[in-house]
């Protein structure tokens, strides 16, 4: 019984041992960290697959080697060996139970960052120490990158000169300070760190609790923006735009605030200047408009009085000359009758001039009425209107494409009539007149033209062409009041369009005009 029980116990112990060995082997083989077992002579007694992978030495190459000669960087071998000897001899706690970061060497000679912890074994293992090595190259790189990024960020912020950028703790005390802050506010970092940020506010703002309100708003809404006056160290004030952003940690706990302030004094001054200039401009426009209104009223009164007062004397001239002729005809000879006739004719001509001038003044005063205008129809209409100048003459008409437009139909009709009437008038000496009416597109703009083969004019005087009472031909050759083209120009100007002319003496003339609302879409 005893024996049996002993055997059973021994067997159970053996089974237990095997299971323990199997577990250790499993741990050794599956651990992601390199596990080295080192005996009391400082030789490697175990080298797991992770160690093989991390260092590049096979188990057979590593077993029995000194870890220092195997994995310590060449230049630090002595240091490491002394250290290991020291640790092995003394069992000093500094390396024990507490991981250290150090450089280790791979089989190919490259070095890497490692974290190593060494612990003393208390089992029946032939080795005395276990070293666990973790490759922390990735972690180190990440840390370095983070440090670098933080450094870069810090330098960036510190070097910003136009913006005061600084941090506040949750209580509103200044924790960082950049160059811009120093430049704008006048405080050095040493003077301001740990101070409440309310020192930058005006007395009035402090009294009404603005600094606290801004922080509360930022805490509540994530950000608060405020434009207002702030105070520099020297007491002077400046306009700023403050942006306060609440900073929270991963758990959402308030860690503090970042504050970006921009000195907008100059901007503000410019804004005020612009505002002032605008007001000035508006005032002057209003003044000018009032003046123009007065001028317009005066002009209207002027035209009105011309229409009344200039006609009456003409009627007297015409009337009494006529009565004189009829009553004294018996006593007058041919010559004197002709004088009287000249007086009457002069009065008539003056009356026509007055009418033309009044028409011109009315063109400028009449309110425009916009409609769709079919220019091709206007040309036909004008031909009908001018039929007395057309009948009995040999005229070749070349009428091209005339896109429609928006405009005042009555006024544009006058334009076409005046231009056509001119073309008819100045082609009169031609046995066969050729009048061309059409349009072309120049730089996306429809340009209408009326071309004739008439007597033309000298381009040196083109500047006079569109003036009131300006005539380039004598009244003996070509009748007219000198108002027609002035009217054309006035009407087109009122439409926002232009008119110009090209000619050579005796080589015909072309009149061009544009109306801004011309569209290819509205076709005749």
């Amino acid at each position, binding site marked *: 019984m005893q024996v049996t029980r002993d055997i059973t116990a021994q067997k159970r112990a053996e089974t237990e041992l095997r299971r323990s060995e199997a577990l250790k082997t499993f741990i050794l083989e599956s651990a992601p960290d390199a596990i080295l077992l080192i005996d009391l002579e400082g030789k490697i007694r175990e080298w797991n697959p992770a160690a093989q992978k991390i260092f590049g030495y096979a188990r057979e190459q590593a077993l029995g080697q000194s870890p220092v000669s195997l994995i310590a960087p060449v230049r630090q071998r002595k240091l490491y060996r002394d250290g290991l000897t020291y640790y092995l001899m003394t069992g000093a706690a500094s390396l024990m139970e507490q991981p250290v970061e150090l450089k280790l060497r791979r089989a190919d000679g490259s070095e890497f960052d490692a974290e190593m912890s060494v612990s003393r074994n208390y089992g029946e293992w032939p080795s005395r120490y276990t070293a666990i090595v973790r490759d922390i190259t990735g972690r180190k790189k990440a840390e370095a990158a983070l440090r670098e990024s933080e450094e870069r960020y810090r330098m960036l912020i510190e070097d910003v000169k136009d913006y005061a950028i600084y941090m506040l703790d949750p209580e509103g005390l200044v924790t960082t300070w950049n160059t811009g802050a120093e430049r704008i506010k006048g405080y050095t970092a040493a003077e301001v760190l740990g101070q409440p940020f309310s020192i930058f506010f005006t007395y009035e703002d402090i009294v009404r609790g603005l600094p606290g309100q801004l922080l509360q708003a930022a805490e509540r809404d994530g950000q608060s923006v405020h434009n207002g006056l702030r105070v520099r160290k020297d007491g002077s004030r400046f306009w700023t735009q403050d942006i306060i952003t609440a900073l929270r940690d991963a758990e959402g706990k308030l860690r503090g605030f970042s504050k970006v302030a921009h000195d907008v004094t100059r901007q503000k001054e410019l804004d005020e200047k612009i505002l002032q200039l605008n007001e000035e401009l508006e005032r002057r426009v209003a003044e000018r408009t009032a003046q123009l209104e007065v001028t317009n009223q005066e002009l209207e009164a002027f035209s009105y009085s011309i229409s009344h007062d200039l006609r009456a004397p003409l*009627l007297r001239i015409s009337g009494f000359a006529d009565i004189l002729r009829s009553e004294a005809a018996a006593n007058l000879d041919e010559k004197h009758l002709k004088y009287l006739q000249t007086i009457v004719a002069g009065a008539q001509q003056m009356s026509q001039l007055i009418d033309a001038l009044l028409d011109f003044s009315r063109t400028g005063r009449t309110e425009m009425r916009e409609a769709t205008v079919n220019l091709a129809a206007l040309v036909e209409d004008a031909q009908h209107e001018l039929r007395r100048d057309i009948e009995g003459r040999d005229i070749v008409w070349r009428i091209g494409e005339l896109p429609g437009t928006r405009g005042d139909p009555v006024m544009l009709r006058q334009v076409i009539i005046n231009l056509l009437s001119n073309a008819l008038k100045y082609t009169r000496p031609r046995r066969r007149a050729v009048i061309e009416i059409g349009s072309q597109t120049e730089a996306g703009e429809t340009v209408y033209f009326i071309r004739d083969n008439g007597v033309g004019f000298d381009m040196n005087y083109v500047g006079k062409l569109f003036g009131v009472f300006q005539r380039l031909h004598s009244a003996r050759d070509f009748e007219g009041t000198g108002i027609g083209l002035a009217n054309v120009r006035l009407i087109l100007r009122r439409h926002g369009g232009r008119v110009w002319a090209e000619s050579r003496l005796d080589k015909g003339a072309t009149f061009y005009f544009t109306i801004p609302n011309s569209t290819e879409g509205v076709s005749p």
Partner: protein
Amino acid sequence: MKTSKWILLAEDDPQIAELTMFALAPEDLACEVLVVPDGQAALDCIYHRGEFLAHAGGQPLFVLLDLKMPKVDGLEVLRQIKSDPQLKNIPVVIFSSSREPSDIVHSYELGVNAYVVKPVDFQQFNDTVKNVRRFWAETNEPPAELPPVTVAVELAGDEPLRAAAGAS
């Protein structure tokens, strides 16, 4: 003024008044023309008041009224005549050198019987005045044989407004 047939002419320009008189030739009609130099006098005359208190000639055959006159202008005279039930049947002809659309429209709004533009040429003037006289003083009906005296005024884009002393 004992005669019952008379025409009132309101015209501030004495020479134009003389030419108008010449054209009206009242002696042909056995009719008198009373000439006044302003609107105030025209109204006094129609209402038989002021210096016209003793004037017992009744109502004129028609009133030939200039627009632009001192004191009271033609439009005001027209307005007063046409808004008085006793007087509104008196024919009023505006005879003005103005072709301003505003004057013409305004006159018609106030109920003018005809708006006639003064021709500057005296022969036309003469014909026009004679037509006016013939229509408003003699027939008061459009005489068929006479060419109508027509004034066409273009009112910026509208159909021509025709003001006729004869027929149109």
